[in-house]
C-alpha cells in the first residue's frame, strides 16, 4: 500500500549551511534515535555521529534523513509503507531566488502531516529564521 506524501516549502538564507540547520532540527525531532543521513546522489547512509556528515554531508543540496539505519533499510526494501510513515524526511535546497537572491527555497517532503510534523516544521522555520537574522535585511530595519 502506498502512502500519499506531503511537502512544505520554506525560505532560508542563501550561502549559509542550511543542511547543518536541518540536520540539527532532525536530531532534536528524533532525539534518542540514531539518525542517518543519505545524499540523494548516493545510496550510502552515514550516522549523524560521523564527522563526515557535518563537514561534507552538510554541503549537499538534496538529501534524506532517516530516524535510524533500520528505518533506512526498511525504506530501501519496502518503500513507503504504513509501518515507516514519517521515518524518512527528504530535503531539497534550491538556488538563490531570482526575485531575491538573499534567499533560497527549501523543499521538505514527508509522508503525512501530523501534529509532530507541524511541530518539526515550526522548529525548522524558527531555526532558519534565527540564521536569517544573522544576515543583514536592510528594509526590515
Amino acid at each position: 500500500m502506498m502512502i500519499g506524501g506531503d511537502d512544505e516549502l520554506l525560505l532560508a538564507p542563501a550561502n549559509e549551511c542550511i543542511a547543518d540547520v536541518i540536520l540539527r532540527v532532525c536530531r532534536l525531532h528524533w532525539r534518542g534515535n540514531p539518525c542517518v543521513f543519505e545524499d540523494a546522489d548516493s545510496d550510502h547512509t552515514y550516522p549523524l555521529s560521523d564527522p563526515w556528515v557535518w563537514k561534507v554531508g552538510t554541503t549537499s543540496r538534496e538529501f534524506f534523513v532517516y530516524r535510524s539505519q533500520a528505518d533506512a533499510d526498511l525504506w530501501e526494501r519496502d518503500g513507503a509503507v504504513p509501518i515507516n510513515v514519517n521515518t524518512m524526511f527528504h530535503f531539497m535546497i534550491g538556488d538563490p531566488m531570482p526575485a531575491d537572491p538573499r534567499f533560497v527555497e527549501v523543499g521538505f517532503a514527508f509522508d503525512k502531516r501530523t501534529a509532530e510534523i507541524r511541530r518539526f516544521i515550526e522548529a525548522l522555520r524558527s531555526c532558519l529564521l534565527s540564521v536569517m537574522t544573522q544576515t543583514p535585511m536592510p528594509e526590515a530595519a
Partner: protein
Amino acid sequence: MTARTLDRATVRAALEKTGSGWLLSYWGQDADKQLDKLVAQLKDFAQEYRRRFKETPDLLELVDVNPAKAAAFFQLDTLMASRTMKVMIWRLLLGSEIAELEFRYKADEPASFRIRLVTPYGEEETYQSNDASDFRILRHIGITGIGGQSTLQGYYAFKGSN
C-alpha cells in the same frame, strides 16, 4: 596531518575565500604582521585541538569542502576568540550540541563563560573562559524555538560583521 600548512599565504587566501578579506584592507600596511600573528594563533588552536582529541583540525580543507562553515570560523569574532573557545567552535561545526551555556559579566571583574557540549557520540565536554571578548561568539549560535522553548543550535557565519 594537514595537506597544506597554515602560513601567511594560505591564511590570506582563506580569509579572501570566506568573505573576510576586508580584514586585509583594514590591516593595510600591517597586514603581513597581523597575518603572522593570526597564523601563530591558528597553529596554537590546532595544536591544542590535537593535544585534546588526537586529531588535527584541517582549517584549509574546510575552506575548500564547506565554505559556509569555513566562513563562520574565519570571521573576526571566531578569530578573536580564546584558544579554548576556538576548539569549542570547531566541535560545534562538527555536529556537537549545546547542552548548557553560562555567560557572566560584571564591570571591573573577570568575565565567566562556560559552555557544555554533547558530541554526536553522546560524550560531554566543558569549555571555560574568562575572556570577555569571547562574548562575541554568542551571536553566531542559532536558536530553534518550539512550543515556547528555545534550543541553542549550531555555529553560523554572521553576515552583518562583513
